[in-house]
């Protein structure tokens, strides 16, 4: 299981992520527990997912999936995640801003996939507040915890930012003006 950072702290992860099979076949739905499901499963089985006796529902988006497709479902969801197959695939950064700024998602927004400490600063600026670190293969648990702990410092890599973003909706030049006034 990947190491989870939530709100800039190491956190326990209660969510189980479901994935489509290699041939595109959708997984069966476990009767309980918090489930993070692919968009397609949500689109086909939202009532089955929500009608379970217990457990919350979240949706994860692949990089090419348009967040507009879940814009009407936000009230029913407890988590949205965006998948980064490689950290150099930057589409998820735009997805996050759209979810936060255009569709008004207020809940947990999680970056999953190839997430490393060196991406945490930018990811947090575009609206992610949770991160599943890519732990690599065969790394001992204690090393993972140590490197995750060290990764937390990445949120402070830069003390300011010029642009408008989810984290600082006003660009620096508008905040400067406010300081003067």
């Amino acid at each position, binding site marked *: 299981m990947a190491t989870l950072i939530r709100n800039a702290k190491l956190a326990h992860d209660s969510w189980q992520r479901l994935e489509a099979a290699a041939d595109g076949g959708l997984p069966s739905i476990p009767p309980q527990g918090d489930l993070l499901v692919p968009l397609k499963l949500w689109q086909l089985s939202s009532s089955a997912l929500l009608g379970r006796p217990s457990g919350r529902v979240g949706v994860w988006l692949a990089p090419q999936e348009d967040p507009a497709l879940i814009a009407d479902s936000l009230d029913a969801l407890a988590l949205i995640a965006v998948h980064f197959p490689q950290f150099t695939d930057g589409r998820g950064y735009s997805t996050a801003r759209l979810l936060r700024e255009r569709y008004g998602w207020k809940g947990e927004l999680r970056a999953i996939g190839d997430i490393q400490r060196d991406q945490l600063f*930018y990811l947090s600026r575009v609206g992610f507040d949770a991160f599943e670190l890519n732990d690599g293969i065969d790394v001992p648990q204690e090393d993972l915890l140590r490197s995750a702990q060290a990764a937390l410092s990445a949120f402070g890599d830069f003390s300011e930012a010029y642009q408008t*973003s989810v984290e600082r909706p006003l660009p620096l030049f508008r905040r400067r*003006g406010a300081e003067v006034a």
Partner: protein
Amino acid sequence: MYQYDEIDQKLVDERVAQFREQTQRHLSGTLSEDDFRPLRLQNGLYIQRFAPMLRVAIPYGLLSSRQLRALAHIARKWDHGYGHFSTRQNIQFNWPKLEEVPDILAHLAMVQMHAIQTSGNCIRNTTTDHLAGVAPDEIVDPLVWCELIRQWSTFHPEFAYLPRKFKIAVSGAEQDRAAIQVHDIGLQAVRGDNGETGFRVLVGGGLGRTPIIGTVIREFLPWPHLLSYLDAILRVYNRYGRRDNKYKARIKILVKELTPEVFRAQVDAEWAHLQDGPATLTAAEVARIGSRFTRPQYLKLDALSPQYTQALAREPGFARWAGRNVHEHRVPGYAAVTLSLKKTGVPPGDATTEQMEAVADLADRYSFGELRVSHEQNLILSDVKQSELFAVWQEAKALGLATPNIGLISNIIACPGGDFCSLANAKSIPVAAAIQRRFDDLDYQHDIGELDLNISGCMNSCGHHHVGHIGILGVDKQGAEFYQVSIGGAQGNAASLGKVIGPSFAQDEVAEVIARLIETYLARRDSEAERFIDVVRRIGIEPFKENVYGNAHQKREARARQLAAA
């Protein structure tokens, strides 16, 4: 010169600390080469043929004498005593050690410089007219807008991992000297009906293996919307640009595949959400940035200095240099001067530590301590008194920087090529040297007149061969280095892409081929006023081809010869 404020400085310092830590993790083995690569690239660091190459940003080509001295110091202490000025108005060092790069970046930060986003799939250094702020044909001074774009693009969190690199150029003059038609985004500053500043926005231009001239997607973007509109373009590109094939990942391919009309509609739909949002620029911010630029305190001088005109009449060598390397200035009595980095036998764009230091001194004594790097890889003293031009010429001559060849055949644009670059198919520098030697006679060069000759060592086109009146491209033929020649390309307002004249040539044939092209031109021109490019446009490439390859029979023989050689 833009002066950093505390926050500008702090961000650059924090970047040095971040990269130092990343480099340490990489050297200690906890950050793999694959994961480190995109991070080091966004700090300008390539791993090259012999050693790492560090590309330092010179935002919009503007440089102070103090900064140039720092670059000279870096060249001496961490490199082999020289640097290479590139076509993106940057400087590259070819021999730094990986573990020393954080120290180099720290040294740069001391003079308000950095290597941020000079490589990688992000928004690169914004370029502009090397005569920005001083050109007589200027409509809008682009420097303030360039700095606003620099700040907006620096550490933009949404656009750090684009499908491919992204280059923006700004021109504020009637004559485009910033090649805005061959950039991912080209911005032409213009004036609206009431004199207000706005931008004509071009997208999807570019060189590389699919050269395309950019398309105008907005005729007049009022200045307050500059950044939100850029956000909209970049967001459409970030979301929909191709990521499956790096050769089809530039925005030009997206614009082409969608058609410019559909692309524009997508940008407008995105912009509808962003327009008038917090990114909208304010007059106060534009004024604040403007006030952070130091501006030369010009003296009130006569339009024409008698010392200057007398020296022109007295000294033919000086007159020849002034005719090519001195440019008109918007302020009476001043001129801009190009110091040529294109002396025969010197790799185009290279400057030694000693030259950099001497040029910094010249800038201090004659040009308010400021200079520019041009995308043609020369250095510009932008604010020289006419009365001091003769002295500048004499000093520049002593430094080997007064070759009177600006706009002429020997002012070659060339990438570092196969001597340094691991991407190159072929060497550029020896080809440039051979051509410069072939045309070393200055009288002959001046007789040939205005001619842009550009050389790229591979189709990444760093040497802008597509827009050279004559373009030379290094190609790989069964493991041997060959050169494809094209003619008819041009930069500027009437930008066009060159056409390949035929099968490629071996390295030692290239200079002779160029000589044939020139011969054809001289024989066919109406008068000295008709430039090489004008003749190509008038008569087409056939007569040039014929003179190079001969008739069909000679052509077959030439092919057989080439095959035997390859």
